[in-house]
């Protein structure tokens, strides 16, 4: 049913396409259904970066969770469909094999009692890698995220690593799965700006060199400017504006986009 899984993603001439159509997410309040995300449609292609941007509470993380069927308790997807290369798929079947994830708080995403090598072994086994192969794949993945120089890294526990190192390790685990798509929900929000810049450089390089398709969820228009080819702006659970990132910066149409950009420029400008 699924197309060939493990080989590296298709080169640029034939990008793979992950599409979410008319996603709707609801919660129940006093017995009535309350919509949190309405009619969210977006398309992610390999070799490209799509940013889902919006203020806090705009529904961007929920839309992303609906894509992968990882919605928090109390919420559910009540409408919409997800397709891969035009074929409808169950969102849960995408996770790990087709779409890898990087989360906001790296420290809570790792098992504190397991080393990085343990985590890599688990991910490798899930991806069908065996001992020697898994070990080599882990070394390759750690090298790809800039953790290859220090031979001690695989034996470190999460508490022995900084936030930036953990986020790199999480991206390395995502690469181990050899999924063509990567979803990153606020991957740099908990890092300082220097660590953030390096992680964004790394993500940009992975998209360029390995043809990953990256969906990045963020509230920071600076991250959008640095990374995104296309951008979808969310407000009150809806995608209110979307398209080419450069065009969006040049000609924002909706008040919500203008507000995000105005604040971004107010902070980016040198004090006068």
């Amino acid at each position, binding site marked *: 049913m699924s197309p060939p899984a493990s080989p590296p993603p298709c080169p640029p001439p034939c990008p793979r396409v992950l599409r979410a159509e008319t996603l709707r997410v609801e919660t129940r309040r006093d017995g009535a259904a309350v919509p949190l995300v309405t009619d969210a449609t977006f398309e992610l292609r390999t070799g490209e970066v799509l940013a889902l941007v919006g*203020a*806090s*509470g705009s529904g961007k993380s929920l839309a992303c969770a609906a894509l992968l069927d990882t919605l928090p308790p109390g919420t559910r997807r009540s409408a919409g469909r997800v397709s891969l290369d035009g074929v409808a798929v169950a969102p849960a079947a995408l996770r790990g094999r087709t779409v890898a994830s990087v989360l906001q708080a790296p420290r809570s995403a790792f098992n504190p009692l397991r080393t990085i090598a343990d985590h890599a072994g688990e991910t490798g086994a899930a991806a069908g890698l065996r001992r020697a192969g898994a070990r080599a794949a882990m070394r390759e993945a750690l090298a790809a995220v800039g953790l290859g120089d220090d031979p001690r890294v695989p034996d470190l526990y999460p508490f022995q690593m*900084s*936030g*930036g190192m953990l986020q790199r390790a999480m991206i390395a685990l995502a690469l181990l799965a050899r999924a063509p798509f990567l979803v990153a929900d606020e991957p740099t*929000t*908990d*890092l*300082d*700006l*220097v*660590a*953030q*810049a390096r992680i*964004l450089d790394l993500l940009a390089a992975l998209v360029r060199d390995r043809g990953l398709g990256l969906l990045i969820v963020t*509230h*920071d*228009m*600076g*991250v*959008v*400017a*640095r990374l*995104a080819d296309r951008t979808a702006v969310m407000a009150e659970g809806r995608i209110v504006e979307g398209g080419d*990132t*450069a*065009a969006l*910066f*040049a000609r924002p149409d909706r008040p919500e986009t203008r*507000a*995000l950009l*105005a*604040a*971004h*420029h*107010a*902070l*980016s*400008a*040198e*004090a*006068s």
Partner: protein
Amino acid sequence: MTARPTPSLLSTRDLGKAYAGTGWRRGTPRTVLAGIELAVAAEECVALIGRSGSGKSTLARLLLGLERPDAGAVRFRGQDLAGLDRAGQRRFRAAVQMVLQDPLSAVNPRHDIGRIVAEPLRHLTDLPAAERVARVGAMLSLVGLDPASSGRLPGQLSGGQVQRVGLARALATRPALVVLDEAVSNLDAPLQVEILDRLAALRRQQGTAFLLVTHDVRLARRFADRVLVLEGGRIVDAAPCRPRLDLTHPAARALVDAVLPAYPEGAR
């Protein structure tokens, strides 16, 4: 550092702090701050910037008297914090307040917003109950929250709203200095700008001084009069924000260079 004729509100002299090693490495203390000399004058706004692990939060905790220094001293209006009597401590706590980064862990989830904001008023001031209620309402409007939300619980508000509750609580005693430890760093940009502008207005009206602790040069540049750069537990650079923030130390340049682009490549 810039010389000012007014006596400083809060200052340090050769401040140092070391934490004892833990576990197997007990007994080998690690120096996290050394030789810190800084002074914040009344009505001044200073930013303390540095990377994660540079010692910013430890310094903020020492300035608030939440931890004792291992070397040097913190002085409040010229008096050593360590030598304050009970009444002096109460005055100090009413005059110097703090807002932390993680808003939900800084409030009691079982207390309603009104009680949370009134807490410092009950302990640190002699305001009668009726005036406390009025002050709480005024503080909530000041940070852009509906005074009617004082009956709600923290769990019913968004993270950004709870952060504003923390801000209202810090401002409730009309402090002379507020220390903001990454207090706006996790908010989205529109909210960051709104809150910084509200605080700037408050500073103009009431002369409140601020110490903004952050890793984000953009926030420091927008809000502060001058910037101090902390790296490896020492102040390595200092500069005024206007007309242009001019930092030279490599650690400071790394922070400035990490600021993300204003526009995507190829659009301007």
